[in-house]
């Protein structure tokens, strides 16, 4: 921001306001801020309302206490913990294979992707590696769960701005992907398919051909969403310049994944992190958007859905043959040590810091879930927005309550 001209911000409008960090105000926000000043000058009273814990836009039990000045939010405080299940404590009382059952329930829309970093952390400590075929199948299923998660987002984001049709399309096309996951793993939502050292089963007959067909459906669906939602004038009016996250601020809050890439930060753990699964052998693009608003987050996720479908097709072409399990003892004992594994999950950076003391169960598991940090920026983001925009901002951040509360 140039220091010579002072823009109208709530900070210099009244000392009573919560200080808003000094960031460049996007052109679309100017009228909001000017409006805010009128409210201050008229000395309208504040009102505190609860959004949630049960609210359609919160996908679960997230409660937002917002202080309103007219239609405008002047302070917001997310209250979480309604679904806290204490997984970090429970893992200390479980064996390693039992823990994967628990962590399926963290981000329940992409359960398979949750298992991967934990199993990988245990494998690192045991100094074993899953065979190449298992790695390829893991990668394919991770990308499929990413597609399933994002298709729901692409449909449901339309719902939050008042468009009902995309929601049906999203659910319809996601169903094909869920069927694929189910036919390979046996579980639609909680596969629990990863084993330390490999996978439970090989792929069923005909799965590869079926997956190719479904990927065509997914790619077509992405085109439909691009026309139907992104090209829609109302959608653009509701999302452009709404809920802007500056990239550097987002990073210091720990915002990750598509949310951070939509703020122009070119960082994807599949490409930039420690190599995991078969990503080093894949050819894929990482998408960023400079705007950082709700529209950018939708755009990035749409491109990533396409890219994931292309990655799955690549994986199917390259799928090696061979065993799907490494040699592992029947009772799994993990040598003492510490291991930190982070992966690029659909919602962002998912990491497990596993501390082992050489037993059959972990001593301490720190679960770093993406939505927790993604949502922690809400008090900053929601200042100065209108109430209807709160809903679109929540939807565009795309969090899963189980991933916040763990």
């Amino acid at each position, binding site marked *: 921001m140039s220091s010579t001209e002072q823009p109208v911000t709530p900070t210099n409008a009244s000392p009573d306001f919560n200080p808003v960090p000094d960031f460049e105000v996007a052109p679309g926000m100017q009228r909001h801020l000017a409006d805010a000043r009128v409210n201050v000058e008229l000395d309208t009273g504040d009102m505190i309302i609860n959004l949630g814990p049960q609210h359609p836009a919160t996908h679960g039990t997230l409660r937002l206490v917002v202080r309103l000045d007219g239609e405008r939010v002047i302070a917001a405080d997310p209250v979480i*913990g309604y679904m806290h299940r204490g997984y970090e404590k429970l893992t200390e009382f479980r064996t390693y294979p039992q823990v994967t059952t628990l962590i399926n329930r963290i981000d329940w829309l992409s359960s398979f992707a949750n298992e991967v970093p934990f199993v990988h952390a245990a494998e690192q400590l045991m100094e074993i590696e899953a065979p190449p075929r298992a790695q390829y199948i893991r990668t394919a299923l991770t990308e499929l769960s990413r597609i399933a998660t994002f298709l729901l987002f692409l449909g449901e984001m339309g719902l939050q701005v008042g468009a009902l049709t995309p929601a049906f399309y999203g659910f319809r096309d996601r169903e094909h992907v869920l069927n694929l996951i189910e036919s390979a793993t046996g579980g639609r939502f909680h596969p629990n398919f990863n084993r330390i050292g490999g996978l439970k089963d090989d792929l069923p007959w005909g799965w590869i051909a079926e997956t190719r067909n479904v990927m065509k459906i997914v790619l077509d669906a992405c085109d439909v969403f691009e026309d139907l939602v992104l090209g829609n004038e109302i959608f653009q009016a509701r999302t452009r310049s709404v809920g802007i996250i500056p990239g550097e601020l987002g990073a210091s809050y*720990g915002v990750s994944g598509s949310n951070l890439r939509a703020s122009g930060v070119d960082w994807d753990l599949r490409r930039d992190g420690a190599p995991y699964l078969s990503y080093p052998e894949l050819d894929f693009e990482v998408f960023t958007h400079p705007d950082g608003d709700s529209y950018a987050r939708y755009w990035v996720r749409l491109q990533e859905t396409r890219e994931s479908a292309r990655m799955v097709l690549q994986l199917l072409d390259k799928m090696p043959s061979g065993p799907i399990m490494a040699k592992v003892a029947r009772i799994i004992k993990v040598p003492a040590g*510490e*291991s930190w594994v982070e992966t690029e999950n659909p919602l962002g950076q998912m990491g497990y810091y596993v501390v082992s003391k050489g037993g059959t*169960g972990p001593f301490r598991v720190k679960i770093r879930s993406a939505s927790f940090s993604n949502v922690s920026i809400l008090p900053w983001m929601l200042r100065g927005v209108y109430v209807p925009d709160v809903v679109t901002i929540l939807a565009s951040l795309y969090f899963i309550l189980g991933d916040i509360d763990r």
Partner: protein
Amino acid sequence: MSDLEVLTTRVTEALGDCVIEHAEACGNLVLRVRLDSWRSVAETARNTLGCNYLSFISGIDWMPAPTVGLIEGDTSTPAQPKEMTFGAAGSAGRFQVFAHVQSTVQHIGFTIKADVDEAAPHCDSWVSVYPGADWHERECWEMYGVVFDGHPSLRHLYLPAEFEGHPLRKDFPLLAREVKPWPGLTDVEPMPGSESDEETKDEAVEA
């Protein structure tokens, strides 16, 4: 020199005598720093080393969990360690806080640990350096009882405001396990017609 060695040299040089010990754990650099330099380490990590991304802050309790209430021979619960041993880069006592910071530009990251006092654990807050530390520190405070000096509002995050105790400390019992042992030796339903089935029937009649 491998990437990790280069990173280790760079980080230890930048942090200077704040570092007590450093170790490598499965390809991840772990540093143990002096508690009084906890905040300045974060500033150096962010401003000098370019680690602009805060992954997490949490705590760890190295005390072995007491096995009170666990039934002898119940193999469903993994055996707990009996002696206090420490992980990578060591520890001076029971409690530690640890954090992971990363750079989204240089694609590096490392874990920082610091020993905190056992009787009255406290350490400096990182909120002024990484705003995202807010929730992580609230969580660490309620789970381990580590007080973060300089945190704007240290209050409960997950648990109700009147909750007592710090659940992730090892001496906090997992009540579900103590009240009812996990399905294992004690929870097997007798086969119909077997001896134990007859016994339960008799007991039921007597009762």
